[in-house]
């Protein structure tokens, strides 16, 4: 069974005619042409296989065309068809033929086709409307093919994404588990990280073309903390669109920064502030620089050992920007900055 058909838009929308007796072929060709139906005539029975390989929408055969060679070639064509495929075959019979025997023979030779029989002489209007409705049915079959292909693709992509999200959740679980001392701390850290992951997932899913702006990622990350800290987080930067992956990574990094600031940094003090700013410079490719700066918090010192949050921040920003981030622990406040090529980050419209 063939899995694919030519993507050619012409496939399935023309009529293939085999009418070897006298001027039958000419007559049928001009009749179809007058009714704006595209026709291909097969004059040589030896070439029927080639003509069928162009995927006619409908096959029209006169009684004289039904030689064993042609019947066999059509049967071969039918057995190679995919599951959604059903070729309509119009047979124009002699007035004096033994209809029942011939129909039985063709039904067994061509089991996977739709047979339409007309007894000659046939009224042109009757033949044309039969062929036109068969062609329409064919085009619907092609739509079915397209839907099947699309569904297969969507299922594959969905499976891929679910696996990726589960892998992320699994890593978050393992990393959180390694870096806590109590069950309460574990629950709090895990809940925060999973919430950050699901919030950015919703934002990216709802966005057009799955691109999300830095501003949107920043807002959704800070939103849970803004109610309490109305004016303590300032955000500034131009419009930069991120891919799904880059948006997710940035959201998780900002989550680590903001929770760290609440626990140990500037947001742990009543008057402390955070500013997060980003800017573009140069072009082709432009460089994006981001700076997280805390101020007004308690005096801080560099942590003696890096927990998961800091290690993740460093390695995620490095892979996202293609450049190592700089974390500095000045007494006045923690600062994290990184700059890298925008081509790695931005979804280009």
């Amino acid at each position, binding site marked *: 069974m063939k899995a694919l058909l030519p993507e050619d838009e012409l496939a399935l929308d023309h009529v293939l005619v085999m009418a070897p007796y006298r001027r039958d072929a000419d007559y049928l060709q001009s009749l179809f042409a007058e009714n704006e139906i595209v026709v291909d005539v097969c004059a040589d029975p030896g070439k029927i296989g080639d003509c069928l390989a162009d995927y006619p929408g409908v096959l029209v055969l006169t009684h004289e065309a039904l030689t064993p060679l042609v019947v066999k070639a059509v049967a071969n064509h039918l057995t190679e068809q995919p599951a959604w495929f059903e070729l309509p075959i119009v047979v124009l019979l002699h007035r004096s033929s033994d209809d029942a025997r011939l129909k039985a023979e063709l039904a067994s030779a061509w089991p996977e086709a739709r047979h339409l029989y007309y007894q000659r002489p046939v009224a042109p209007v009757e033949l044309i409307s039969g062929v036109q409705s068969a062609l329409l049915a064919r085009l619907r079959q092609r739509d079915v093919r397209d839907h099947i292909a699309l569904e297969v693709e969507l299922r594959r992509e969905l499976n*891929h994404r679910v*696996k*990726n999200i*589960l*892998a*992320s959740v*699994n*890593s*978050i679980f*393992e*990393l959180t588990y*390694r870096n806590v001392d109590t069950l309460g701390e574990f629950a709090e850290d895990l809940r925060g990280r999973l919430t950050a992951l699901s919030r950015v997932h919703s934002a990216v899913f709802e966005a057009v073309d799955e691109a999300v702006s830095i501003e949107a990622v920043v807002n959704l990350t800070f939103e849970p903390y803004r109610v309490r800290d109305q004016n303590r987080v300032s955000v500034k930067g131009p419009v930069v669109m991120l891919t799904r*992956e880059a948006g997710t*990574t940035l959201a*998780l990094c900002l989550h680590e920064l903001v929770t760290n600031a609440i626990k140990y940094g500037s947001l742990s003090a009543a008057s402390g502030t955070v500013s997060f700013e980003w800017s573009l410079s140069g072009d082709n490719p432009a460089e994006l620089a981001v700076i997280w700066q805390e101020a007004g918090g308690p005096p801080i010192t560099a942590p003696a050992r890096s927990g*998961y949050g800091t*290690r*993740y921040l460093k*390695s*995620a920003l490095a*892979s*996202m920007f*293609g450049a190592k981030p700089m974390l500095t622990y000045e007494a006045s406040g923690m600062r994290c900055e990184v700059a890298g090529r925008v081509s790695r980050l931005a979804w280009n419209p």
Partner: protein
Amino acid sequence: MPAENLKSRPPLRVFCVEDNPLIVCHFEMMIEDLGHVFAGSTESFEDLRNQADAATMDCALVDIDLADGPTGPEAVLWLKERGVPAAFVTGQEPTAAQHRNAAVCTIGKPMSEASLAAGLAVLAAALASARAGNPKLK
């Protein structure tokens, strides 16, 4: 911990080719827990080719789908040509099976410490036999 019975062997410098930073971070900690050394990571085959130095790694863990597409098999071949044995770490076992000649083994995702330890043992053996066959790589 499994790290104990590996102490007698020299630690491996393990490189990661993986585009999910969470997973890289997780792998980094597991590699260190097993007594080995995390030798860095890249998120794409392109970055591996342009930025990585094969001399700084003993073996590599490579995903199939990377930031520049399904280029994991190419990355594994690139590493192999430079004497670095690699294992696929992927949820796409069928694709990994199609390229099994290039990679030394396949570790399923999500990767546990036990499956990483088993994979690293296979990589260590592949490295030892490659170096025995080509003394220059020592």
